């Protein structure tokens, strides 16, 4: 009878001491939680994509709560809804979010671009890039192993015929793919644009023709024909000034290589997270 009482009282005693210690510790060393930050964090999407420029949604919420001159319309994936909620919590005027959309500036799919070797290494663009700039002769274009599709938080990119395609209805515009692409051929644009250049090859026309049947040869026809002078050729590639572009589609009609794409990049967002 006697030993078991000692044993029980020792364990119970240790339990009580530990409990008391923890209770006082949590009272004494209580860290006040910033309620505004918590509330802001709840209305953010939680994809942690970094499109706002802060380290994840937690970082953006903390910056907003601390009023570190963080604008309320930085959450591109959240769009206007999130911007409105943030403004309500912080009691600031609502700012409109310009939705962003990613686009792959390349048309070099299987059949158009020349293959210089058969690559059998690790299944990723980054690895392929390290090995003689990938298996295609064009060293500027899409490598086709879908590193961008892997990082996309909303499954908006699929690789088809060896080239990455963005499904614009699903793209949340976070820009993770643009930062991942080893060739830097994915760019994020405001979704109000209507045309993009479907080539990233900065080589001269004769060299482009040798490696890809879909590449831009820098013939300057679009630059000359554009009615509002929105196109200028820089390093053998057309550059569209979207502030001037009126979306008439004339450049697409005159392009001899058919590498200017017209599309509606807007569209209702469908989310998978």
């Amino acid at each position, binding site marked *: 009878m006697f030993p078991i009482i*000692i044993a029980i009282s*020792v*364990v119970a005693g*240790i339990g009580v001491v530990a409990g008391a210690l923890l209770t006082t510790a*949590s009272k004494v*060393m209580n860290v006040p939680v910033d309620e505004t930050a918590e509330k802001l964090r709840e209305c953010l999407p939680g994809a942690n994509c970094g499109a706002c420029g802060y380290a994840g949604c937690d970082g953006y919420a903390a910056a907003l709560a601390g009023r570190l001159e963080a604008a309320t319309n930085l959450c591109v994936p959240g769009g206007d809804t999130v911007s409105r909620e943030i403004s309500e919590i912080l009691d600031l005027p609502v700012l409109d979010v310009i939705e962003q959309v990613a686009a792959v500036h390349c048309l070099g799919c299987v059949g158009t671009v020349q293959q210089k070797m058969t690559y059998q290494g690790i299944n*990723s663009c980054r690895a392929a890039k390290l090995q003689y700039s990938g298996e295609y002769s064009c060293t500027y274009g899409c490598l086709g192993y879908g590193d961008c599709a892997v990082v996309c938080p909303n499954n908006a990119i699929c690789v088809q015929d060896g080239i990455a395609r963005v499904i614009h209805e699903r793209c949340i515009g976070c820009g993770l793919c643009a930062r991942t692409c080893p060739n830097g051929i994915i760019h994020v644009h405001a979704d109000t644009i209507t045309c993009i250049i479907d080539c990233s090859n900065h080589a001269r026309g004769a060299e482009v023709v040798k490696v890809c049947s879909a590449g831009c040869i820098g013939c300057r026809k679009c630059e000359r024909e554009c009615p509002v002078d929105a196109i200028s050729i820089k390093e053998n590639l057309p550059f569209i000034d979207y502030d001037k572009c009126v979306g008439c589609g004339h450049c697409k009609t005159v392009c001899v290589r058919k590498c200017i794409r017209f599309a509606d990049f807007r569209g209702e967002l469908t989310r998978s997270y």
Partner: protein
Amino acid sequence: MVKFVSIILAAVLVNNYVLRQFLGICPFLGVSKDLKNATGMSIAVVFVMVLATAVTYPIQKALLEAHNLAYLQTIVFILVIAALVQFVEIALKKFIPALYRALGVYLPLITTNCAVLGVTIANIDAKYTYAESIVNAFGSGLGFFLAMVIFSGVRSKLENSRPPKAFSGLPITLVAAGIVSLAFFGFGGIVENLFAKG
């Protein structure tokens, strides 16, 4: 000094907690998927192992053995370690928020890790002094660190390979863990011979 070096070497290589004694397998398989998480977890384990030993050793000597209660060792140690880790978490949150964020979720995860409990009990069983116990705990933590880092490297190789369908996922990971463990069995007897007298 030689004694301390031999204790550390033995704990890291010969008696590696994960690869030789098969304790702490859960985080070894669960958190070893990438190097960053593996390092975070391992640093937390080193930290908690040393701290737990520093606290449980006096309790064993002054409280349990002094009153013939050594049979309560396991349950008392679990209780003390759990409370201690909670306390450390609260204190870190208040005083060193940067470290709190770095250790993050791993600190509460290892509260009742069997490797931590194993180290504290092994120190008592091996009849180490207080200083030797602390050194042994530190070495065991380093051993865990080494196993985690090595295995996260192995796993990143596995990620890029295509095993037969029946092996893909956990089975091939377990096979790989077995092979890494076998490799560590090659260290058997090294420390004894290295520090043998005469």
